[in-house]
């Protein structure tokens, strides 16, 4: 073994061992447990553990709340991803304009919500969304909109949480897009301008292809992020009203750590994993077709 070889292992083995213990091993176990009836009885004594094959998955398919959670999560992703990515891109484009002054200041302040605690800011937003005393309804009232019971109405609970999430995360993608926009070829942009291309035309044919890979990556990460939404409904609505904000991960948490149906909860975790994997593969395919990757 060479000196480099020894050092290489010395430097990387400790962290690899931890990754194996807290990530690789449990992930493998998750698959194994998802085909068992691991519950509070097995927690007390392993001999109560039984193999149930695909039983957990079949059970889930006949659990209305699971379908509800799946639907809610999809709704979060379908509405949330365009909302979050669109806002980030819009602000990044605005800040990319050469005429804007004090850019570093705006950038730092717009990024600030991203570094705050989800729990603490969810508490703040729950307060802002209060039907009677919330600032949002007061602002809406000023333009003549009747008070909305944001978090108490199943129709507005998801939009309300999405407004909070978008507020919290758009700064991150804005910075990522800013970096990508700085790589848009200037001479190409000038040429398009001279050829009389419209603002939209220049965006569509010059900017978009240049930032395509970044846009794709941000979308992939955002989809994964929205599919894993948990803390926001946990703090703001407890999954309600009328289970309108119970997400897959929320369902998994309740199954696992409230009812101790760990076999069932692992099956949920696996379905979540497969969903994220599937969406990632589809998005990568689309990216390849457009030669963004």
């Amino acid at each position: 073994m060479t000196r480099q070889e020894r050092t290489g292992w010395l430097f990387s083995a400790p962290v690899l061992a931890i990754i194996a213990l807290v990530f690789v091993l449990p992930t493998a176990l998750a698959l194994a447990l998802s085909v068992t009836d691991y519950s509070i009885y097995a927690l007390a004594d392993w001999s109560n553990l039984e193999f149930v094959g695909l039983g957990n998955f079949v059970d889930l398919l006949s659990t209305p709340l699971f379908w509800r959670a799946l639907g809610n999560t999809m709704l979060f992703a379908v509405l949330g991803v365009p909302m979050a990515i669109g806002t980030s891109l819009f602000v990044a484009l605005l800040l990319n304009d050469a005429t804007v002054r004090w850019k570093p200041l705006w950038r730092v302040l717009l990024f600030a919500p991203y570094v705050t605690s989800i729990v603490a800011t969810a508490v703040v937003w729950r307060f802002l969304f209060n039907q009677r005393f919330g600032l949002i309804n007061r602002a809406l009232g000023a333009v003549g909109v009747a008070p909305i019971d944001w978090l108490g109405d199943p129709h507005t609970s998801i939009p309300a949480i999405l407004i909070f999430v978008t507020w919290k995360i758009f700064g991150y993608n804005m910075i990522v897009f800013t970096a990508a926009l700085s790589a848009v070829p200037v001479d190409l942009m000038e040429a398009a301008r001279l050829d009389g291309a419209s603002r939209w035309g220049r965006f569509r044919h010059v900017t978009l292809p240049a930032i395509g890979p970044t846009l794709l990556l941000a979308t992939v990460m955002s989809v994964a992020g929205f599919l894993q939404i948990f803390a926001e409904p946990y703090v703001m609505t407890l999954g309600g009203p009328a289970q309108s904000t119970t997400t897959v991960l929320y369902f998994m948490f309740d199954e696992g750590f409230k009812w101790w149906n760990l076999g069932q909860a692992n099956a949920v975790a696996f379905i979540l994993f497969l969903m994220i994997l599937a969406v990632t593969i589809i998005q990568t395919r689309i990216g390849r077709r457009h030669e963004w990757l």
Partner: protein
Amino acid sequence: MRTIVSTAAAALITALTIAPLAYMVVVSFMPRGESTTLPTPLWPSRWSLENYHELLVRRQFDGAWFDYRIVPALVNSIGVAAVSTALGLLLTVPAGYAFAKLRFRGRERGLQLLIASLVVPGQVAMLPLFLIFKELGLVNSYAGVILPSLAGIFAILFVRQATLAIPDEMLDAARIDGASEARIFRSIVLPLLTPIVVTLALFLFLGSWNDFLWPLIVLADQHLYTLPVAVAAIAREHAADGELMMAAAVVTTMPVLLLFLALQRYYLTGLLGGSIKG
């Protein structure tokens, strides 16, 4: 003219974004009950510290001590975040360097596995990890909170990416001069990586400080709660006490916001990959 319009637009969006945080601070200084009067007040009638006092100071009620455990949770959070940051750096920085610059068997395979594992969401591992930690006696302990945060796959790749830019000739020259591998790492690589290490330290600290789901799962004892878990617990019981909850939110968000503002140069350039100027 265009400068004014575009700058005003940027300022407006920024003001809207910062408004919830500003309002959080303002409400936290309102006298108890003021925020739930109509029309919703935008400014305290008088600046009051009673919410912070109630939240942070232990009081005696009917002969029993009572407090919201925010100060202990604050101390716990600082401790947990400091330890996970220090250990995280200790583990991932050398590993990132090894994956970038040291030739050893299994390196490529290891790297591929690390990248592949980024697709697996952490929540898949969470339930079995709880069972493993239960067997190991790590449930309801800080070791149980910290250990998973040390599996820094992203951190390793982040350090590796930055290390690739260091020229091989520099390291080889040191080797020919007879420097040991440990010495090369300490005296040449680490100084060059300082900005990256600071950036990573900030990422790790913020990640640990804001982490919620895993501490919620692994900590059962109230005395061990970290700040977000403690705040979520108070929020369940004191949802109606707007001013008190805003004070709790201020205590939770301000330390990291200030840390971020102080070190934003590192954080943002870390994200931007050094590609952006003013």
